[in-house]
């Protein structure tokens, strides 16, 4: 299926695109087992760490500026901050508030703030890191609308970068979609619309991460929906197959990834969420 696809490297002339859809529903207030924080706080912490990782990876020399290897978007769905109520909005705060896709160099230069945060992988150390996304939760889960909103940005981006590695959209959620059908269209078809957007290197990748507040067996990049508890089979059907570079990344990190594995992580803990996002956003780059 992926022969000849997903082989493009990210360069400054052909940057990649990473979009995070972040669940901001009221259920994200649930405590994340073993972390001492809520799902919303944990997810925001991991997200800020991933964004920092991307900035560091794109800095090829000491004190050199961050290279424009990616355009980044983070969209929260559920509670809105800028216009109170339920809906979808950019999750960036501060100088980037309201922005859709932001070039990585600009993201690096304009965080909301820098503060001491606990380690995302549950180590006992803490460190000062830049913050771009704050935890927010409330209302319900308008996942379809999130895909509709993000899809417009992804569509425009793909049109402007026809030869780039395809966009990567990662959905982080903990529960039930509440707006399907949205605009007369059910969630699976919204996902189909999103993944129909493609560049010359392949269709948009759509990955899903399901958070669970309770201790439960983690399932990472399954190759079959068999044995997945609800809503695993639905999420499996909506998740794109892992492309070869990411399969290799996952195996290099010690994960047992079978052929046909999908970009789905189920019942993950905070440190696993960090690892999954690292694998899902690690695309070969070239020093141009």
């Amino acid at each position, binding site marked *: 299926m992926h022969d000849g696809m997903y082989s493009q490297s990210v360069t400054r002339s052909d940057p990649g695109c990473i979009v995070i859809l972040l669940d901001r529903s*009221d259920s994200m207030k649930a405590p994340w087992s073993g972390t001492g924080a809520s799902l919303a706080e944990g997810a925001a912490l991991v997200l800020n760490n991933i964004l920092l990782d991307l900035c560091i990876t794109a800095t090829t020399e000491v004190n050199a500026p961050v290279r424009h290897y990616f355009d980044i978007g983070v969209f929260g769905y559920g509670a809105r901050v*800028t216009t109170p109520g339920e809906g979808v909005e950019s999750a960036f705060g501060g*100088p980037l508030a309201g922005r859709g896709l932001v070039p990585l160099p600009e993201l690096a230069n304009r965080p909301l703030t820098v503060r001491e945060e606990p380690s995302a992988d549950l180590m006992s150390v803490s460190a000062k890191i830049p913050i771009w996304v*704050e935890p927010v939760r409330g209302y319900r889960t308008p996942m379809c609308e999130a895909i509709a909103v993000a899809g417009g940005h992804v569509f425009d981006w793909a049109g402007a970068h026809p030869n780039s590695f395809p966009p990567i959209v990662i959905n982080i959620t903990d529960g039930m979609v509440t707006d399907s*059908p949205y*605009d007369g*269209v059910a969630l699976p078809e919204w996902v189909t619309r999103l993944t*129909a*957007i493609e560049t*010359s290197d392949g269709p948009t990748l759509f990955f899903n991460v399901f958070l669970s507040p309770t201790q439960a067996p983690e399932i990472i990049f399954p190759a079959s929906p068999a044995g997945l508890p609800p809503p695993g089979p639905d999420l499996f059907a909506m998740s794109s197959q892992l492309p070869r570079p990411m399969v290799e990344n996952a195996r290099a990190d010690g994960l047992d990834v079978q052929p046909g594995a999908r970009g789905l992580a189920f019942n993950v803990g905070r440190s696993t969420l960090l690892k999954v996002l690292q694998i899902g956003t690690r695309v070969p780059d070239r020093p141009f």
Partner: protein
Amino acid sequence: MARRGRVDRQLVILVITLLCGLLGALLGGLFGDGFLTVSWWLRVLAVLGGTVIGSGVAFFLLTADRPETGRWSPQPERPAPPRPPEPSQPPEPTRPSWPAVQTPPNSQPNRMTPVAHIGDRSEPETYPSTEPARIALPLPGGSAPPSNGTATRQWWAETPSAAAPSDRREPPALRRSPAPPLSSYDVESALIAQCPRCGEFRLDVSHVARAYAFQCRNASCGNTWSWTPGTPWPPVVVRRNLPGGSAPDGASAERG
């Protein structure tokens, strides 16, 4: 054609009015001739009656509804039907995709004050489209745009460039400009052009203002770049093992 119809109509109206007036006058005259012994005021009444009837017919014809033009309507406007009341809550989902893991949808939402400070909101980032995206599965558009306001257009229904699946990884052909005459060839300034990404010698080139636009013909590469005379050529890295392609003859292998 519509204008000629209107003129004919007005002419008819005028003729009818005149005839009715004449009829009234004739009746009055007949009365006056002794067909019936009537007083003078009855004659006047007959004439006036004829005129009124004619005017009434004319008025009726002039003020009748004209469905073909629709520009005026003597009919009083019907009152607008009352709007249905706005739903107080969004409709419940028809079928949940999976069992509820959170509190029921109609529970009181618990708003948490966000910690983030929302500063100046700049316009959402937009990217100028150089080429429309290719959509493999064109889908019918929805009836209403998303409510958030950011994606108000039906992007999923927009027409992409017609790229067949076989076009994937095939670099689009550049417009080829004719070769310069050999008399303009200066061996001292000659430059051997190679693709900076893979080292390929087969390149398409076009002249753009003072610069040259290049495109690598290696099907596995397709790299595009520009170069201005007088500036250094970009560093070349020879890559033999690009996925999906065969090695250029005589190229040395170097991992990029």
